């Protein structure tokens, strides 16, 4: 069995978010990056299937040079090889542009399963995975909370609102975009990190994949015009002072509510 895992590298959840000079994204120089949290769950689910049987796990990521680090981490955790699409021509791609590149890889690799995250923590798009599936002719399911595989049929539980779950069946090959919390993600062991150094990492461009003319700002149908700090409404009344002063004032508020 071959399993492809789509990983995006995103700014670390504790990184400072300063708006870039052109006002169109955040300032990405000198901040820490990490694997998108949803994608760590996707990778773990793939590695669990590998542990349970025989599978080759291939990690794929589109992004600049820094992305090799995310792929190395994935290899350290247990992925067998990595594909890095590193192509300056892809700058300014929208979700559809990213999806076309990933779909080209899916067609080239013909995996039995494709795992992705539900959503990226930076753009919060939740767009790419079902697009990849549509373009590659695969069925898909999103917000996946559990996966079981038997005789070429995948049964998943999708998360609905308020804790309800929808049980869905799909044949392989298919694409699953996972929700956070469906498993406990492993860490890369020291041994794993050492072994990762010898694992193959292919670098490709969009042109190599035959979709060179479908990516980048020129092909994008969606453009971010500006990013900005959300306008603050009335907001909260801020209480300042030492911890004890703050506590005294809060107790006053709680008394006013008749709760003390």
């Amino acid at each position: 069995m071959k399993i492809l895992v789509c990983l995006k590298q995103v700014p670390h959840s504790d990184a400072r978010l300063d708006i870039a000079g052109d006002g169109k994204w955040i300032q990405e120089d000198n901040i820490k990056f990490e694997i998108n949290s949803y994608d760590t769950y996707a990778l773990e689910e793939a590695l669990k299937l590998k542990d349970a049987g025989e599978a080759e796990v291939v990690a794929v990521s589109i992004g600049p040079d820094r992305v090799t680090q995310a792929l190395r981490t994935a290899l350290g955790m247990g992925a067998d090889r990595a594909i890095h699409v590193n192509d300056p021509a892809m700058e300014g791609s929208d979700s559809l542009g990213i999806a076309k590149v990933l779909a080209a890889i899916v067609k080239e690799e013909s995996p039995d399963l494709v795992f992705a995250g539900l959503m990226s923590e930076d753009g919060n798009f939740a767009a790419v995975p079902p697009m990849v599936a549509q373009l590659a002719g695969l069925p898909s399911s999103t917000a996946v909370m559990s996966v079981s595989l038997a005789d070429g049929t995948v049964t998943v539980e999708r998360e609905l609102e308020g804790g309800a779950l929808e049980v869905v069946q799909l044949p392989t090959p298919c694409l699953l975009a996972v929700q956070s919390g469906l498993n406990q993600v492993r860490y890369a062991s020291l041994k794993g990190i050492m072994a990762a150094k010898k694992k193959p990492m292919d670098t490709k461009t969009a042109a190599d994949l035959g979709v060179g003319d479908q990516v980048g700002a020129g092909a994008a149908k969606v453009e971010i015009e500006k990013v900005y700090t959300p306008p603050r409404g009335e907001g909260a009344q801020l209480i300042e002072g030492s911890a004890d002063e703050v506590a005294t004032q809060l107790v006053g508020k709680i008394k006013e509510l008749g709760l003390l």
Partner: protein
Amino acid sequence: MGTILIVAEIQKGVIREASFELAAFAQKLAGSGHEVKSLVVGQGVKGLAEEFAQRGGGEVLVAEAEALANYSADAFTQATLAAVAASGADLVLISNTPSGWDFAPRVAAALDAAFVTDCFDVSDEGGAIGFKRRIFNGKLDAQVKATGTVVATVQPGATPAFEGSTEGKTTDLDAGIGECKTKFVEIKIAESKGVDLTKADVIVSGGRGLGAPEKFTEVVQPLADALGGAMGASRPVVDAGWLPHEYQVGSSGQVVTPKLYIAVGISGAIQHLVGMKGSNFIVAINKDPDAPIFEVADVGVVADLFDIVPALTAAVTAAKG
């Protein structure tokens, strides 16, 4: 100038509130010359389609088929594509709900269309459609522009539901549903376990800012106990296995409306906010002054929670005498 197609959503036998919110956005754009049409899919949904036609939907295409009786990504994608072809729509609006986010990207990819997700504002930019949406889990907003055929998903609750009436009619649509690889099996309703946060007068919720599971017993629970309230949590706390799911507040947890909600080390992502913003009085304690939680809070403390919460617990205990 063009045609908007609203894809309405039926849940538990009624049209979702979110669909009337789509109607509100569509009718706003109708002011700048767009025609509004809608799609209602399911089985035995004629009556609902007629209702929607009169409450903002305009001309409603009704696709009825056995394959549409329950949600399936394949069937809903096919029905929507058939409706786009029949209506000539160049803007498709779908709610960002668990079904919406599952099939809307497929529709967009099949149409090779611009795709914008989870937006909270839509406007006609003359030749392009402008959207506003949250990014970085609510810490920033983005203004985006989409051209050509556009598919967009809209955040539920982003705008009030359409209240006016429209002179709509319904038209049957033969969606010609072909092979469906995704198969609906069943819906499992979460059984309520021990903790029912919806009954608590006071909830003290902890987030990822607590940093470790034992901090919930050391820091959050004592404050909840002192106030005679319950403890809650944000999703990452539950994902990490620090607390069981029944403690989770938010769109995929419990929706709570206590008299007092204290959010500790929680940033305020929309999925958390929808679970607690209806609380009577909200206190937020967070070291980041820009955390979106402060937007819904009545009172905010920008400080280290490990300084404030123990002091507050002590002060509450002292006040009780």
